[in-house]
């Protein structure tokens, strides 16, 4: 692994390396949110909260308790997942609108908590997080996460998630325990959020509660919404575009949030399923394959 890093760092400028690693981390974060929001349709606007839980937990474990990196990452993700369960269980019985607000509230509570959390450095944050996140590690994890997501969405669990999003009442009529699945999707999303947070902390060396604010949650949501809700390649595309663009367009950094906001509105009006969300693999197969009489589609 280290060999790979050495080779890569010889050929690629550190600046671009940084962007690539961040894209990788964002892909993991966004795929997590994708499970909750893209596939199961539960709008979660507090994903940064899970990220911060993973980040702080893993950072403190690494720095104060000398835990091995993989353990710190894992525990961070598990802590985030546990909170996903705690938040999800009581609130996922409610209408989607309320859930959205509660997720914002939850993320805010987490942020306020860390602002006042002495071991986390309060507002000043934590500095000196061992930089264990390497390019090759992120690469491996991204591949793994993509693989598991792919398997998930193909499996009957993934299809059940999707059914809950499409038509919850019909899903219940099929014997699907919608509440349980919603909570599960929340927990899975939170786990990946925490994992991404841990990777982030061990890459950036320095974290503060500001890194995990509402704007961050929106950024990740944008990746899912832009790329395509429920579509793995779509989410990867969204993560790529929205990580790279602000870097390349530093000039327009001031206009970034303006652009994000307008983008969300425009997307919802014209292409609510994102760039790739409407593309169905079966359609592609048909068009590329034999010529068949196509059924009438509206």
């Amino acid at each position, binding site marked *: 692994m280290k060999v790979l890093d050495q080779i890569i760092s010889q050929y690629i400028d550190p600046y671009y390396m940084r962007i690539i690693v961040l894209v990788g981390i964002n892909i993991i974060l966004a795929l997590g949110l994708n499970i909750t929001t893209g596939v199961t349709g539960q709008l979660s606007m507090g994903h940064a909260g899970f990220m911060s839980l993973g980040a702080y937990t893993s950072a403190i474990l690494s720095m104060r308790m000398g835990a091995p990196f993989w353990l710190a990452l894992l525990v961070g993700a598990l802590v985030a997942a546990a909170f996903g369960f705690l938040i999800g269980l009581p609130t996922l019985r409610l209408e989607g609108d309320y859930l959205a607000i*509660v997720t914002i509230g939850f993320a805010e509570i987490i942020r306020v908590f860390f602002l006042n959390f002495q071991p986390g450095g309060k507002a000043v944050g934590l500095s000196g997080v061992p930089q264990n996140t390497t390019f090759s590690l992120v690469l491996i994890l991204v591949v793994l996460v993509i693989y598991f997501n792919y398997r998930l969405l193909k499996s009957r669990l993934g299809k059940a998630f999707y059914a809950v999003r499409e038509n919850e009442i019909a899903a219940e009529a099929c014997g699907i325990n919608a509440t349980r699945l919603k909570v599960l999707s929340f927990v899975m999303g939170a786990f990946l959020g925490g994992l991404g947070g841990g990777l982030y902390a061990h890459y950036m060396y320095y974290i503060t509660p500001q890194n995990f604010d*509402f704007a961050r949650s929106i950024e990740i949501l944008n990746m899912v919404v832009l790329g395509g809700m429920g579509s793995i390649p779509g989410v990867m595309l969204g993560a790529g575009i929205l990580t790279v663009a602000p870097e390349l367009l530093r000039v327009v950094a001031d206009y970034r*949030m303006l652009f994000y906001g307008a983008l969300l509105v425009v997307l919802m009006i014209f292409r609510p399923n994102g760039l790739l969300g409407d593309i169905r693999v079966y359609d592609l197969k048909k068009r590329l394959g034999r010529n068949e009489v196509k059924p009438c589609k509206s």
Partner: protein
Amino acid sequence: MFLQQLINGITLGSTYALIALGYTMVYGIVQLINFAHGEIYMFGAFTGLFLVSIPGVNIGIAILGAMAVCMVLGVLVEKVAYRPLRGKSSRLSPLISALGASIFLSALMVLIAGVNTRPYPNVIPVSFYHIGPVQLSSSQLVILLVSSLLMVGLQLLVQKTRIGKAMRACSQDLDAAALMGINVNRVISYTFAIGSALAAAGGVMVGIYYNAVWPYMGTMAGLKAFSAAVLGGIGSIPGAMLGGITLGVLEIMGVAYISSSFKDAIAFGILILVLIIRPQGILGQKISKKV
């Protein structure tokens, strides 16, 4: 001491109530959480700031001016970001669009006025009134008076006028109202306009009270006011008033008697508790699903 905090809480709560009314009316009529509402409140505050820096403009004009501007803004947001999505089956898209509108507006204000906090010039001559053990500052008095006036006015509007009746009809059953010949689009626009006007007034007064405005003040206040609306019973106008004041009191009490660092978390804690224990709020009614 307790009474003093109570008065402080009611004052703060009145501003929450003004914002909460906008949320509750819009939710009652189109079942949408208007995320951009907090930003309307913020725009109101800034408009007021802009107006009072013009010599000769007093607070009354500032409030009225802010209300007018925000009425237009609110209607515009509805037309652009919400109306095209009405009737689409997905519950997710209008929410995300609302979120986008909210982000857009706050980013817009950042571009216009910069990120930093701006002070409010002293529009109200500072003085203190003593009623028994309680001390009221002049700005507190203004807030209490103006918000009471506005809330009473709203109740009159909703209960006694034709447009109010139309609003009530639409919030009960939009389709039936349309079938009765009510111009539903116009009623919805009015609802947004009125809610925005109230929030704008709240914004100006908060700016004066705290002597400060900044582009992101809408996010926090908006979320708290939404919690207040839910507490009182979303969709219920008296509920929003009750919820707002209650939340203000609870927040001030929390700061005074528990700790000030968790001030912002109090509103969210209450929101989560309400949604778990009694989702319809204090005055709300249980809504059954239509299958």
